[in-house]
């Protein structure tokens, strides 16, 4: 098993996928990782929809300029606004779904899968395509599949780290 830091460092955003199905068991494990993320007030203001059918994936893709290939699956990460509003400031729930999404990206890597978080998609269109009620807001797509590319790591800005004080 890899160390958590290995997984964090080696994960890449994968945009090209093999034409190979991802096992349901792996998708379930990824979703399980998502629901174990922290959330403000433990509200868990999220909904995850795993889309695996090819036809549905293709339809989501045409409404998502940020998806460049046909992934084996797409996890649609949504906020349940009725729950999010219980926090007082519903905008806080964006942090919650971001943390859940990172869990999914790392879990996917650990399972030998590639993934990419995609924000460039049309929210209204996804709501229509997936029959989402008004209070379930799609916020992020996580594409999944076996990688067909090995992107090099991008440089990191380590000058952003400080101790005790800025500067």
């Amino acid at each position: 098993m890899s160390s958590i830091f290995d997984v964090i460092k080696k994960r890449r955003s994968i945009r090209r996928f093999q034409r190979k199905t991802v096992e349901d068991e792996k998708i379930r494990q990824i979703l399980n990782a998502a629901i174990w993320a922290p959330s403000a007030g433990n509200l868990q203001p999220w909904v995850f929809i795993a889309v695996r059918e090819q036809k549905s994936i293709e339809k989501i893709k045409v409404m998502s300029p940020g998806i460049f290939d046909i992934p084996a699956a797409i996890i649609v990460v949504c906020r349940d606004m009725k729950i999010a509003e219980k926090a007082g400031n519903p905008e806080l729930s964006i942090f919650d779904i971001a943390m859940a999404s990172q869990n999914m990206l790392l879990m996917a890597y650990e399972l030998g899968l590639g993934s990419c978080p995609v924000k460039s998609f049309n929210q209204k269109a996804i709501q229509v395509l997936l029959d989402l009620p008004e209070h379930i807001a799609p916020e992020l797509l996580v594409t999944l599949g076996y990688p067909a590319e090995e992107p090099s790591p991008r440089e990191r800005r380590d000058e952003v780290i400080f101790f005790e004080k800025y500067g």
Partner: protein
Amino acid sequence: MVKDMAKDEDKDLKDDLFELFCFMLSSARGLMDEPKVYGPFRIVDSVSRLISILEKHQLADDFLVREKKKIEEGKYSVMDGEDKFREFLDGLMVDFAEELKKR
């Protein structure tokens, strides 16, 4: 039979174009909130997608097929900074201008 095949092909072309329109419209909406550089990226990506449709329906010439390959290989330079992406777009413009001169 030949008529039916032509009808199917017609429908196929219409479906492909319809999907392209969905892509372009969702790009238009998305670009209202996205970084400025995504604009030229989406346009060049649309060109590549349109050439793919032409190619699929045997309507693309060698020049367009070559340029599509170039776009697919170079479009991600958008992530390496604006200078690299500008250089990539300039290269495409030179190709298209030279081709235009010949036509």
